[in-house]
């Protein structure tokens, strides 16, 4: 997993796929997700219950815990933000 996390490009692609798979988003492709667009409401149209599933998936896959809603809001701002959040957590760990 370290290899993917260290490569922003690869991590963003991985996260897009993770979101599509975890939330079983029908008709959404990796290409269709803009990495700087908001994930919630207007952007990809996710809501707070979707976020619960993503929090659980991220903890399982990356062993990164999103402790509270405020942190979650910042982390889930966009794909790029989420990638940056995970990279930061990895840096703190090493």
């Amino acid at each position, binding site marked *: 997993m370290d290899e993917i996390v260290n490569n922003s490009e690869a991590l963003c692609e991985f996260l897009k796929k993770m979101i599509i798979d975890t939330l079983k988003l029908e008709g959404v492709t990796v290409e269709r997700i803009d990495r700087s667009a908001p994930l919630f409401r207007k952007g990809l149209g996710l809501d707070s*219950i979707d976020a*619960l*599933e993503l*929090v*659980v*998936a991220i*903890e*399982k896959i990356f062993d990164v815990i999103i402790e509270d809603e405020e942190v979650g809001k910042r982390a889930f701002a966009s794909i790029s933000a989420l990638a940056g959040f995970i990279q930061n957590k990895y840096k703190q760990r090493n």
Partner: protein
Amino acid sequence: MAHNSVGFKDRRVIVTGGTKGLGKAIALAFAREGAWVGVNYSSDDESASRTEVELESVATKSLLLKADVSIGADVQKMISSVLDQWEYVDILVNNAGIIRDKLLMFLDEEDWDRVLEVNLKGTYLCSRAIIKTMIARRFGRIINITSPSALTGRAGQTNYAASKGGIISFTRSLSKEMARLGITVNAVCPGIISTPMIENLDQETKSNLLHMIPMGRFGEPEDVAWAVLFLASEKAGYITGQVLAADGGLT
């Protein structure tokens, strides 16, 4: 046996307050249906070890879990230890509860706090500690035990009734959070159940209580256990946010 069709083979269950009375009956009922059952208790080691022996004789797998459900760190430790051993949990029954009955005029702050902490905060803490594993598998059943006091009120139980009423509101709200994720959250309301506490009452009180129950008999712990098993079953997957009273018509 025909009733095995409910199907709990290898389902992983935690029952808080599961070594005595109603909780024990619920734990044993799950165990007889093939479930793995973890029973939590807080202080009475003696009855816990007796229940452990009984449970081991019927359950595929069982765990004895000592923890005070009103303390976050204890709950977290308990759930982590279950997940370490069993990987996930399918069903949580929040049954742990205490009473400290007094008329409000004499009900001191400690009586109020302790009842709310164990009954209501305990339900919150255990539910919060378990939902991640349920979300990850998109399956879960949370069943909270409430009381007729919550529905109708009872003198001397302002603290207990408030905690159990809180559990109903908690159940309804959490059910809405979890509905899309394959997790149902319901409450079961036992009526007046024949436990040592009821058996020890004087004849007059007993007969007064009996007159209140349209079915004319006290409930057996198993009557309530079946309601819990029903809501925990896969087939009850479209039922959430409900209060199911198993009370002989009392409420």
